[in-house]
């Protein structure tokens, strides 16, 4: 018959019922080969063929770390590593294609100021770059300020995709230091 262990403590009345939310147009889908969740640090790390599909942005990389806030809700810090590629269309309808080694998403509210940035970094031979149809800009680091919608460049270089004769997509011309 049933013999209960002496050290048994009855379960408390706590219940953690799953919540099913309707799919919304704002939702982000993230896929990967595998993932590890650390409940102590509240980190979800995705490994291998990481794809993020969002209404505002597409991202691919080899590893992505999402830090979940203790109180739940939307992550405020996300780190993408290795062969990072980000594509998005800005408010003017212009496509932006960004490549880097590392991308760090950070959301902070300090006083009345909201900061939401994505900081891209690379390495000496391959700094982060944002590519447009007519030109490419490299910068180390490259900061996408989400509050303004602008990039912040440091030690940047601009590479035109047009030739002097007006042709396109041949012999990029490096015109800026």
């Amino acid at each position, binding site marked *: 018959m*049933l*013999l209960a262990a002496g050290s048994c403590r009855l379960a408390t009345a706590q219940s*953690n019922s799953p*919540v099913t939310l309707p799919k919304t147009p704002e939702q982000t889908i*993230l896929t990967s080969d595998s993932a590890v969740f650390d409940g102590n640090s509240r980190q979800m790390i*995705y490994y291998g063929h990481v794809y993020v599909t969002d209404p505002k942005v597409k991202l691919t990389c080899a590893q992505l770390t999402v830090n979940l806030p203790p109180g739940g809700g*939307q992550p405020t810090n996300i780190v993408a590593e290795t062969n990072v590629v980000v594509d998005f269309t800005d*408010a003017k309808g212009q496509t932006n294609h960004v490549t880097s080694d590392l991308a760090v998403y950070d959301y902070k509210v300090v006083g009345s100021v909201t900061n939401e940035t994505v900081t891209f970094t690379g390495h000496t031979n391959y700094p982060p770059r944002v590519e447009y149809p007519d030109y490419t800009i490299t910068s180390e680091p490259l900061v996408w300020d989400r509050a303004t919608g602008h990039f912040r460049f440091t030690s940047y270089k601009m590479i035109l995709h047009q030739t002097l004769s007006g042709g396109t997509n041949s012999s990029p011309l490096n015109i800026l230091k």
Partner: protein
Amino acid sequence: MKLNAATLCLASATAIFFFAGTSNHAQTMPAGHATGFTTESYYEAPHDQQVKIKLSGADASPLPGGLLDVKQMRVETFTADGKPELVVRAPQCTYAPLDGGVANSAGHIKLQTADGKFQVEGDGFLWRQNDNVLTISNHVQTVMQSGFFKLPTQ
């Protein structure tokens, strides 16, 4: 957090369990079948009355080597002040209560935050209860209900 210092609760109206010994409850294993199964681990002091992780199953059957075959596995985690954090669910797992509270399965698994805004699914998993670490092996898909960015695109 030590599982041995925590609890192993097995309860069912129809459960029949036989323990190999009674002198050391942490080392005894049930032999039989139960339709209710719960293990809990607790925070360390000063929150030692607060459940940190609760693993439960609708059905548990003993396997060789001190393992349990658990159906309808459910893992719930709580903050130190008792608020629910995560829910992990799987149709089946093999659970090793005496080996660090390790659960694994080749089957499907679902994880979501208590508010449901962050939902993860995949195939094949390893849950290390003592370390509070979950590995999902294949086909991981996550839905972030509120999107990637907080601010609108400028």
